[in-house]
C-alpha cells in the first residue's frame, strides 16, 4: 500500500515530475551503453531489469527481490540492493541513474555532484505511457531494440485478450480499505478486461478509503485484491477478510504486477480475465 500510495501521489504530481525533468539542469551525457546503472525506485527497477543486461546494473532498491512487490524479482537476486542513501550511490559512481520518477529523491539531492546522467521517467498511468517509458529506458541503457521487441510482445498478448467483465463492477480494494480510482493503471486494466471501476462509479479520487459499510452498500460484482492480503498477517489485511464482504467474488493478483507501470501489466490482465472466467464457470 505504501508503494501504491506513493505511486498515486506521484500520479497526482505527475506534471511536476515532468517539469523537473525538462528543467535546464546541467547533465552529463550517458555513454551509449552505460555499465553502472543505479535504479532509485521500485518501478525503475522493473524496467532496468527487463531491458538492461545483468552486468550493466550496479544497484537496485531494497524491494527489488520481494516477489510480492517486484515483478522481475527473480532476475534481481544477486544484484546489490541499495538503501536509498547518497553514500552508496556516490561509492558506485554510476554512469546512469534511473528513477520513476527521480524527482523528489532525497538521496539524489544529497549528492555533492548533481551531474550524473539521469533518466527521469514519468509515472505511467496508461498502457501508452508504459510503452513510452519502456522505449526511453531501452534507449538509455543502450538496447533500443529490446524495447521495441518487448512492446511488440505485450501488444500481441493484449490483442488476443477477451473482455469477460461484460460491464460488471469491480473494486480494487487494498489493505485498510484503500480503493484505487480512475486515472490509474488499475483503472485502465479494469476497462481492458471489460470491468467498470467502482471508484469511478462513486466518483472517488485516484486513491480513496472506502469503509466496509460503504463497500457492502455498493455491492460490487468483484473485489480485486492483492494476493499478499490473501492471508491475514496484520490488522490492515484482516479487514479484507471481514465476514461482511466474504460473499463478494474475489480476484487476487500480485501487487508486483500492478504496482508499477511495468512489463508485468500483461500478466495482470491475463490473470484477471482467467479469474473472471473461473468465477463465472463456478457459477454456471
Amino acid at each position, binding site marked *: *500500500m*505504501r508503494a501504491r500510495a506513493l505511486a498515486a501521489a506521484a500520479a497526482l504530481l505527475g506534471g511536476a515530475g515532468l517539469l523537473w525533468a525538462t528543467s535546464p539542469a546541467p547533465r552529463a551525457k550517458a555513454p551509449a551503453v552505460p555499465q553502472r546503472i543505479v535504479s532509485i525506485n521500485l518501478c525503475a527497477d522493473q524496467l532496468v531489469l527487463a531491458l538492461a543486461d545483468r552486468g550493466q546494473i550496479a544497484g537496485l532498491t531494497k*524491494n527489488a527481490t*520481494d516477489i510480492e*512487490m517486484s515483478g522481475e524479482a527473480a532476475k534481481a537476486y544477486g544484484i546489490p540492493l541499495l538503501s536509498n542513501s547518497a553514500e552508496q550511490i556516490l561509492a558506485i559512481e554510476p554512469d546512469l541513474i534511473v528513477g520513476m520518477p527521480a524527482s523528489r529523491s532525497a538521496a539524489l539531492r544529497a549528492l555533492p555532484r548533481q551531474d550524473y546522467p539521469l533518466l527521469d521517467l514519468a509515472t505511467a498511468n496508461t498502457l501508452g505511457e508504459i510503452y513510452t517509458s519502456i522505449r526511453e529506458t531501452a534507449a538509455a541503457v543502450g538496447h533500443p531494440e529490446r524495447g521495441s521487441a518487448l512492446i511488440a510482445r505485450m501488444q500481441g498478448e493484449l490483442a488476443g485478450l477477451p473482455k469477460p467483465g461484460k460491464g460488471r463492477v469491480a473494486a480494487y480494494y487494498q*489493505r*485498510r*480499505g484503500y480503493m484505487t480510482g480512475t486515472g490509474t493503471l488499475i483503472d485502465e486494466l479494469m476497462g481492458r478486461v471489460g470491468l467498470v471501476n467502482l471508484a469511478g462509479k462513486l466518483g472517488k479520487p485516484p486513491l480513496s*478509503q472506502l*469503509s*466496509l*459499510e*460503504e463497500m*457492502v*452498500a455498493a*455491492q460490487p460484482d468483484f473485489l480485486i485484491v492483492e494476493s499478499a492480503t490473501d492471508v491475514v*498477517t*496484520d*490488522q*490492515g489485511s*484482516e*479487514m479484507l477478510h*471481514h*465476514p*461482511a464482504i466474504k460473499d463478494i467474488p474475489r480476484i487476487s493478483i500480485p501487487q508486483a504486477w500492478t504496482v508499477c507501470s511495468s512489463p508485468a501489466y500483461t500478466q495482470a490482465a491475463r490473470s484477471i480475465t482467467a479469474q473472471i472466467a473461473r468465477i463465472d464457470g463456478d457459477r454456471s
Partner: protein
Amino acid sequence: MNRFALPRWSLIAALLLLTLVAAIGSLLFGAVDLSVARLIAAATGDGDGVASVILFDLRLPRTILALGVGAILGLAGAALQGYLRNPLAEPSVLGTSNAAALGGVAALYFGIAELHPVMLPLLATGGALLSLALLFILSGKAESPLTLILAGIAVGTLAVAGTSLALNLSPNPFAAMEIMTWLLGSLENRSFDHVWIALPCIAIGGAMLLWNGRALDALTLGEDAAQALGTDLRRTRLRLLIGTAIGVGGAVAVSGAIGFVGLIVPHLIRPLTDRSPSAILLPSAIGGAALLTLADLGVRIIPTTNELKLGVVTAFLGVPIFLLHLMRERRIW
C-alpha cells in the same frame, strides 16, 4: 453530605439509560446512511441483504466491542485507583494498555496468533501482567503519587518502544500504519471473531475486579488498617493484577491501546457517589461502556478523510482531567 451524590440505584439506572442510548446510536449511524425503518426491518429479519449485513456483521460487533472494551477500561481504572489510592492510576497511564498491545503485536506479527486463537489474548494478557508486576516493583511502597506515575511512564514508554521494535523487526512492510492503530486504538472493521476473543476475557477480568469492593474501601485507611479490618491484601493484589491483565489484555488485543477511559470515567462518576472506591466500580464499568461507545460514534460521525483513531478522541477528553489532578497534587510534591 455530598451535594451531588445520587442514590446508588438511580445512578446506575441513569448510566444504563445513557449506555442504551449510546448503543442504539452506534447501531443507527455509520458510513452508510440507512433509514431507521430499513434497519428495523433488517433487525426483525425481513430486511434487505445490505442492511442486515451492515447491521449484524458490521455495526453490531463494533457496538458490542465498544461497550465491552469501554466497560473493562472504566472498571480497571476505578479498581486500580482504589487499590493504589491514586486518582491518576488507570491502564493507559500506568502503561498496562501499551504493554498489552506489545503482547498482541508479538502474537500477531510473529505468527504466534495463527497457532491457536487463544494465543492473541493470552500474549496480550501476559504483556499486561508483566507490566503491572514491573510497575508494582518499581513504585514499591512509595507513598508519593508521583512515584507511581513516573514508574507508569517508564513502563509505558518501554512497551511503546517494544511495540515499535517488534513491528519494525517483523517482516511486515506496513509497520508504521500498524503501529499507529495499536497505539491509538480503533474499533473499525471488527467482526464477531473479535467479540469472541475479547468478551470472555472482559467478563472474567471484570468479575475479578468487581469482587474487590470491600478490600478497596478498607484500603482508604491505608494498608495496615485494611489488613486489620480483615482484608487479605495478598489475594486482593493478585485478583486485581490478574483481573486487570486478563480484562485489559483481552480488550487491547482487539482494539489497541485506547487511552484515558479509566481516568475520565471514575473522575466523572466519583462526585455522584459517596466517593468510596466500592461505590464507583460498577458505575465506572457502565459509564466506560457509554463513554467509549459515544466516542466511537464520534469518530464515525466527525467528517474526516480517514476515520479518526479512538485514542485521539479519548486523549482529548482525558488529558485535561489528568492535568487537573496534576495541578491538585502539585502542592503535595
